[in-house]
């Protein structure tokens, strides 16, 4: 590991000042950053430990819930208000990582975690995200776990966060503060497609910090769920995942929100495809039309085309009331 200066920030002002120095990185839980520093993928000259800043509060207001950037993943997942009003958030967190990691990892750290693409995580291979211009090994290499949506010739690495997928379905707002003051960005605009610059992953500017994430309260949010499909039952990244919520009134879809993980280079949501469902009866055909619209833009490879079927299956399972009932029946009769 490259040597670095360690600075513990006592105040937000001090943290911003220190992060303004070149080649500085913010350290919170460290579960992603310390790992990548050991691998030589990250090698900052300065680490600014923001772990003791007072940014961990979870506060329910009249119209929204605010979650501090340093709230631990465990604290958020077990928060009674989160469980009740934003169940997909709690479920998404509990579907990810392990208990030890969730105790350490912060909200902002979860949103900023880097991809699990093995070519990114090893300095032995060319990778445009790690070393711009060096090439993408996944494009011609093993890419069964890579993205099918939003890929470019430069990068097809999946964003690994479950939490970000839930936040995207629930219209979260990411609050930032930097040298030029505070601002906020809808999470739908927080992540950037790789295009020609996969090394730039978010709109976060150098020296900026996430301070909180704000979730608007709604009946739709309270009806949200998270389904994750993966290669083993626990402690594994998503092959495909879906955060969804649907409100049906008089037999027709009134509101719907669907975000997907494991499929895209960024957490994925297609509001144009969602519009296909509004006003329609929910059933096999309308859900297929949604899937067709959603996946029309996909560019699968021979090895990861299975993700399209996986996504369709997951979407039907989450949205189709008949399928959901079948699933429950099947589970109930299994000799577990």
């Amino acid at each position, binding site marked *: 590991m490259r040597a670095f200066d360690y600075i513990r920030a006592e105040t937000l002002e001090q943290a911003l000042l220190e992060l303004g120095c070149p080649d500085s990185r913010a350290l919170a839980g460290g579960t992603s950053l310390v790992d990548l520093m*050991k691998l030589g993928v990250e090698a900052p000259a300065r680490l600014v430990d923001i772990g003791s800043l007072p940014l961990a509060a979870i506060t329910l207001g009249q119209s929204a819930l605010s979650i501090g950037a340093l709230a631990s993943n465990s604290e958020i997942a077990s928060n009674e208000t989160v469980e009740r009003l934003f169940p997909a958030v709690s479920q998404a967190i509990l579907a990810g990582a392990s208990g030890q990691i969730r105790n350490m990892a912060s909200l902002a750290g979860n949103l900023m975690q880097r991809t699990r693409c093995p070519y990114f995580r090893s300095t032995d291979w060319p990778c445009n995200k790690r070393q711009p211009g060096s090439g993408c090994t996944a494009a011609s290499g093993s890419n069964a776990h890579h993205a099918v949506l939003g890929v470019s010739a430069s990068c097809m690495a999946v964003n690994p966060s479950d939490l970000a997928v839930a936040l995207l379905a629930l219209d979260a707002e990411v609050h930032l503060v930097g040298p030029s003051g505070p601002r906020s960005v809808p999470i739908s605009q927080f992540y950037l497609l790789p295009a020609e610059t996969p090394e730039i992953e978010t709109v976060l500017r150098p020296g900026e910090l996430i301070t909180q994430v704000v979730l608007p309260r709604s009946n739709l949010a309270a009806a949200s769920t998270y389904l994750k499909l993966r290669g083993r039952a626990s402690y594994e990244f998503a092959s495909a995942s879906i955060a969804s919520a649907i409100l049906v009134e008089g037999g027709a879809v009134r509101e719907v929100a669907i975000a997907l993980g494991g499929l895209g280079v960024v957490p994925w949501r297609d509001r144009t495809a969602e519009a296909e469902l509004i006003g329609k009866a929910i059933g096999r055909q309308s859900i297929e039309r949604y899937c067709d619209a959603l996946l029309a833009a996909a560019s699968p490879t021979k090895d990861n085309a299975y993700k399209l079927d996986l996504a369709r299956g997951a979407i039907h399972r989450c949205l189709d009331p008949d399928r959901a009932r079948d699933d429950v029946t099947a589970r109930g009769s299994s000799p577990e």
Partner: protein
Amino acid sequence: MPDPRSPVRLSIAVNGSRMEAEVDPRRTLLDFLREDCALTGPKKGCDHGQCGACTVLLDGKRILSCLKLAISAADRSVTTIEGVEREGGLHPIQQAFLDHDALQCGYCTPGQIMSALEAIADPELRTRPQIQEFMSGNICRCGAYNGIVDAIMDVKANASL
């Protein structure tokens, strides 16, 4: 600006004793415990947060000591397997691991027990599938998983903690 390689002062409570040390900022809590404190219970399995063998409690919550810089645990309290015994005897969960053959080679066991401590303290965990999910961050390559769940269920059912 200080020399990046110069050690930084660390004050930390380890198994109830206050430790004062000078550490390289790169030192992980795991290396600090094993090499500076001679507490070799926490194991270095993968050193990348994937196996759980390095699990310790930080302020009472289980964490992975391999992904925690020692300096970032300053002024906090760490418990390792060496600090688990009760009045010189085994903790009930340690005895239950023996009773239920919850280990073969024993390498993952200190980490398993540190996780199990959180499991037995959590009243929400009642069923075997819940405990299996809860313990999924601790890998056992001998495959003693059923015994580990047995041990935790036993303590939850019988021990007065």
